């Protein structure tokens, strides 16, 4: 029997290139690239969530551990997690044996379901926030991604990780329990390769996202990351940074964002007028702009405005 979905798939296959065919069938095309000894990265799109990219917008890191691979962040959906399982077995027959979530945003932990029987590490704040906000994130993700999300359920992390030197499956890390992008943002320094894994505290050539942001705390966290000696940095979104350019870029953007919103409030502008302000060229060129700026106005402006405007009674 020819179902509507099957017919749509045929349409996609006939009219479009092979890659588009894969998208029409909702298959993630994950390509791990080796970035250090025993370390691979799957680089996400720098766009926002869409039906085209299936939410594959996040950077994923796979690292050799004693018993298999350590997975840093698990992607936006069950289907993504399953695709990671397949890709991981090509790198190491034993596959993924432990998972770390840098924070509780859905693109970073909704693949956990595929690894639910393995230890999943995160900061305590991340665990709590994943439980509190996971379901409403799931509603939004189903709406944004449709069938890519089929079968996805919220599986929060299970093991609390603290700061300092930690061993995960025999691999040594220095853990930095930070925050500001969300209530809890975990950064890891991989001791073997000197790689700094920042999660979404650092974005590179992709606009920082602010739905859970505390800008002051985020800037303090960037100060901490700046002190870390590292051979390379893997941001949450965007390419690997070997020139120490990503942290100053993120800092510059967040500073500009806050200044722009405070100045607008002091001049009596409202959100629509601010959204229509053109971005400086250096930020307009970032991935996911100007959409991310518009979302930041919605997240941050009402609070900033109340701080800036005087009482009138």
């Amino acid at each position: 029997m020819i179902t509507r979905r099957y017919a749509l798939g045929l349409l996609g296959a006939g009219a479009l290139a092979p890659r588009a065919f894969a998208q029409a069938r909702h298959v993630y095309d994950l390509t791990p690239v080796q970035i250090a000894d025993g370390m691979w990265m799957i680089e996400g799109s720098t766009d926002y969530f869409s039906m085209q990219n299936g939410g594959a917008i996040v950077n994923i890191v796979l690292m050799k551990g004693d018993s298999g691979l350590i997975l840093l962040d698990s992607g936006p959906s069950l289907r993504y997690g399953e695709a990671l399982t397949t890709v991981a077995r090509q790198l190491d027959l034993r596959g993924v044996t432990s998972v770390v979530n840098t924070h509780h945003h859905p693109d970073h932990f909704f693949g956990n379901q595929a690894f639910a029987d393995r230890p999943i590490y995160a900061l305590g704040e991340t665990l709590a926030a994943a439980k509190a906000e996971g379901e409403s994130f799931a509603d939004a993700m189903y709406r944004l991604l449709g069938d890519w999300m089929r079968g996805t359920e919220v599986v929060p992390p299970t093991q609390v990780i603290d700061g300092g030197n930690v061993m995960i499956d025999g691999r040594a890390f220095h853990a930095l329990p930070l925050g500001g992008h969300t209530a809890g943002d975990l950064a890891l320094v991989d001791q073997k390769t000197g790689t700094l894994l920042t999660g979404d505290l650092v974005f590179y050539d992709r606009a920082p996202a602010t739905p859970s942001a505390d800008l002051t705390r985020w800037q303090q966290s960037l100060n901490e990351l700046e002190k870390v000696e590292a051979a390379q940095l893997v941001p949450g979104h965007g390419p690997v940074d070997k020139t120490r350019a990503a942290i100053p870029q993120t800092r510059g953007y967040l500073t500009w964002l806050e200044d722009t919103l405070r100045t607008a409030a002091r001049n009596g502008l409202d959100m629509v007028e601010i959204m229509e302000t053109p971005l400086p060229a250096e930020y307009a060129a970032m991935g996911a702009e100007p959409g991310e700026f518009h979302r930041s106005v919605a997240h941050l402006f009402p609070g900033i405005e109340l701080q800036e405007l005087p009482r009138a009674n």
Partner: protein
Amino acid sequence: MLRRPLIYLACLVWAPVALALEDPKTQLKDPMKSGMWDYHQIELLGDPENIRFDDRVIVRGPESAEDSLNVPLLVDASGIKNVKRIIVSADYGPIPHILTYYPEKAEPKIGLRFKIDQATAIRASVETHDGQWLIGSTYIDAAGGGCTAPAHAYASDDWEEKLGEIHGRLWAASGRARVIVDHPMDTGLSDGIPVFIIQNLSFESDEGDLMARVELYEPVNEDPAFSLYFEPGTLGGTLHVKGRDNNGNRINGVLSESETH
């Protein structure tokens, strides 16, 4: 097997009659093609005869509502002279009427925020003093739920102490006034929470002249926030804000050019 054809037949018989009943006096071609406009033209605007869509009524908002409880909107009808009032409404939502703005001595232009319940066309219907209705539209995509969620205010214990607190100021040189009033703006659609809204806000000069007036309805956001626009130089040093909610609470404040902090 016979059932379906019978239903089709019933539709054929009834549809023309039903349509005839719901046709407005003046049938417009809706640029948003939303399917609900005819209904609002009759129910919300009173089925006026002299009505049309007009590009001079500009409605600007985000393509998509990031926060369904705080959707910003800018309505600008300053290309039209002789504006009596502007009715701002959503085609789809449990309560379509968002607010009515009487610009009086202000420009027919207002910035506001509202709660959105689903993706919908948003309209600004401008009535002129000589009885014309001119309509502008935009479309805002949304995940929704904005009208049926309880107010954030109740998450804190001190919401009653802040009720009616006003933040704001004016900028005489650029002719702007901005005002934010602390209020839960309960729609009555959340379980066990009755309607609790500010119903009107007036803006008066030192001499007591009415400069502008807003009638608010349930979809206006929690802690209503408005931008008003005046011809530069026409604002005095202060603007008095006066209002009342449906529980009889008075709202009073004075906007001035005091320093921001």
